[in-house]
């Protein structure tokens, strides 16, 4: 069988990769040493035409299915890795068939949870990861996606203004339905809870878990966080006719959680004394969409919130509240945001994403101001940050050298 590549925009350079070798034995010079989560399949990162791709060796039909699923999820704008292609029909030099490969784009600045835990951690990291995963799971469930294998290993995390944003990385077991039943959502949550507990216990056994974190308690948080968010996003709310402010307040609460309400159903009782509201269509990315519209910056939700806050203070400080928002935003971008993010020397640019750096500098200024007892100009803050903090940060565009694990579970009862 000839080598067969499925891709929406195939890169001919793909053909130069050593497909005739089992992925496990690919030569170092093809590979990028980036951290990975626990997996049963062999996964490697390769450099190709200036980008990094993740290659997973897996049965052809499963690869094809996962590829198509990731395409659909991308179209639905759920945070997940971007599929690049499937290579099948591989043969080794002796002519034996090799498994197919699913190729996805490496998600830049993403961190597998194990890499996060091998760095020195701020307390509460596990909780923040779980919060991010809860948001992702709710979003997936709202679109009708049943994951089937929810875990920290199957999620990638990006820093998001001190919190994290979660991305789906492994869609192998996923299914897309019109809507999910209660049982399906429950099952996903149960899988999540057990997997997260197992993953945290594993970190504990390896001596990586932050002190004072209990794996079971922490894993239970996924259930409560999910339930809170799900209720806020979907539940029917009933109130007296006079309390109409509650419509607005519900929308605001959803906005604060990072969601826009695209459709809200409002109805009254037979006798007209009560009103019922229920969000019908909600859309994540309330702040990031607004920031994108105002500035063209495409960043994570909490980063956007942070940047918008800074933009608001800029407007106030310049006394420009009555001016056109877009014009002020543009001014803020060129006078505040860009000078800060450009102040980073080239060799330190791989440490943090620009928006995350901006967030860190704002934090840094706050600490400096507190110490000094007066407002420190942002120019001073960035200088001090670049000199004292940034150099000691790990390179997160391409973190290297962390414990990564493959644990192939071959379904063979070889000696039973």
């Amino acid at each position, binding site marked *: 069988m000839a080598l067969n590549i499925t891709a929406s925009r195939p890169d001919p350079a793909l053909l130069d990769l050593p497909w005739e070798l089992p992925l496990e034995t690919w030569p170092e010079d093809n590979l990028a040493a980036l951290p990975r989560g626990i997996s049963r399949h062999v996964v490697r990162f390769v450099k190709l035409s200036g980008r990094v791709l993740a290659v997973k060796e897996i049965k052809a039909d499963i690869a094809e299915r996962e590829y198509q699923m990731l395409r659909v999820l991308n179209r639905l704008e759920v945070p997940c890795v971007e599929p690049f292609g499937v290579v099948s029909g591989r043969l080794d030099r002796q002519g034996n068939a090799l498994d197919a490969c699913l190729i996805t784009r490496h998600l830049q600045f993403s961190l597998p949870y194990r890499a996060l835990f091998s760095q020195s951690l701020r307390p509460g990291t596990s909780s923040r990861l779980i919060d991010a995963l809860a948001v992702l799971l709710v979003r997936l469930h709202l679109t009708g996606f049943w994951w089937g294998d929810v875990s920290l290993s199957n999620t990638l995390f990006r820093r998001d203004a001190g919190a994290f944003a979660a991305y789906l990385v492994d869609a192998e077991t996923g299914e897309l339905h019109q809507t999910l039943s209660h049982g399906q959502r*429950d099952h996903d949550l149960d899988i999540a809870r057990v997997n997260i507990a197992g993953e945290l216990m*594993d970190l504990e056994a390896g001596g990586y878990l932050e002190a004072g974190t209990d794996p079971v308690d922490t894993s239970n948080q996924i259930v409560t966080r999910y339930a809170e968010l799900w209720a806020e996003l979907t539940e029917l709310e009933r109130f007296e006719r006079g309390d109409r402010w509650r419509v607005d307040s519900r929308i605001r609460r959803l906005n604060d959680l990072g969601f826009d309400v695209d459709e809200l159903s409002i109805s009254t009782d037979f006798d007209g004394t009560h009103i019922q509201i229920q969000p019908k269509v909600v859309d994540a990315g309330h702040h990031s969409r607004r920031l994108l519209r105002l500035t063209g910056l495409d960043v994570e939700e909490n980063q956007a919130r942070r940047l918008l806050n800074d933009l608001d203070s800029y407007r106030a400080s310049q006394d420009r509240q009555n001016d056109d928002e877009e014009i002020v935003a543009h001014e803020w971008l060129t006078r505040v945001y860009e000078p800060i993010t450009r102040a980073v020397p080239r060799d330190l640019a791989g440490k943090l994403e620009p928006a995350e750096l901006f967030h860190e500098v704002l934090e840094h200024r706050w600490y400096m101001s507190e110490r000094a007892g007066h407002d420190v100009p942002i120019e001073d803050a960035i200088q001090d940050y670049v000199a004292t903090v940034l150099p000691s940060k790990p390179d997160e565009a391409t973190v290297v050298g962390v414990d990564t694990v493959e644990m192939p579970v071959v379904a063979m*009862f070889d000696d039973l």
Partner: protein
Amino acid sequence: MATVKFDEATRLYPGNDKPSVDRLNIDIEDGEFLVLVGPSGCGKSTSLRMLAGLEEVNAGKIWIGDRDVTNLSPKDRDVAMVFQNYALYPHMSVADNMGFALKIAGVDKGEIRKRVEEAAKILDLSQYLERKPKALSGGQRQRVAMGRAIVRSPQVFLMDEPLSNLDAKLRVQTRTQIASLQRRLGVTTVYVTHDQVEAMTMGDRVAVLKDGILQQCDSPRHMYDHPNNVFVAGFIGSPAMNLLDVQAGDGGVDVGGSTVPVERARLAGASGGNLTLGVRPEDLELTTEGQGIPVTVDVVEELGADAYIYGSTKARQHIEADDDNDAPEKPFIARVDGRRPPKKGDTVYLAPKQGHLHLFDAESGARLGD
């Protein structure tokens, strides 16, 4: 351990006009290995998911033991989906990998240890309990993953195409291992596959579904010898049963010009003169001209002791209503003595062996006679 009962269980997906599972009735015994099998889209996964609590049941009920679980959430049903993607944790011992879910469930340490040791014994992992998974073979790792489900001692194991990502050789190996493990554990198991060979080799009983409707639920032997209808007859068995459209005649049925004798009583239930005759390739004997079904040999496949002949008859091959009408006509297949096989181009006369002739009503597809 427990019985399982599908009681008129029905699932209609929103937006569909026809139920995907339509009034399913199956009584599964305590400790039984039941396989749900059928072509793609027949509703086997949906049935399993109703049992697991993943799909709503629109009508009817589902029972586990004497509990009506129809409206219970998956985690309250005491069932375990086995061969879900179980990860193994590198820093944890084999014992902890098997037992950690019990810890989450609040089971006390002594009890966890006891259950892990029991499971390890069954899985032949006793001497590896303190090792890390890295130090195990692939097969041992698979058993550790299996152990995770076993220590929970659920009332029912559920498996949906667990072998689908294995290659053919491993599949065969693994399916016998699963079946033997299940028998040792004695846990009621419901297993879904589209592969009838897998179903027939693994199940205590096999339930064949088509278009959401249960066709037959029987032991593999009985189903093979007494398919309830023409669909089951054609679905079960490999190579498949020969199915020919025939006419009832005097003293038997008329097959391509010759008469195959059938007792009159057997035809009593037929709705008309049109019938479908079925006979498995291994249930045919060579006979003399005028006695059996005349078959022109197109291909002879010699396999040592046996040979298979692929030929054509004057009788029409039966076509299922939803079969592809443009598909090439299926050959008539017969197993013959490998030492004296006929040659290509020969015409041979093949008679069904005593008691191995199947007849079905052409109208309803239902089996005629016993």
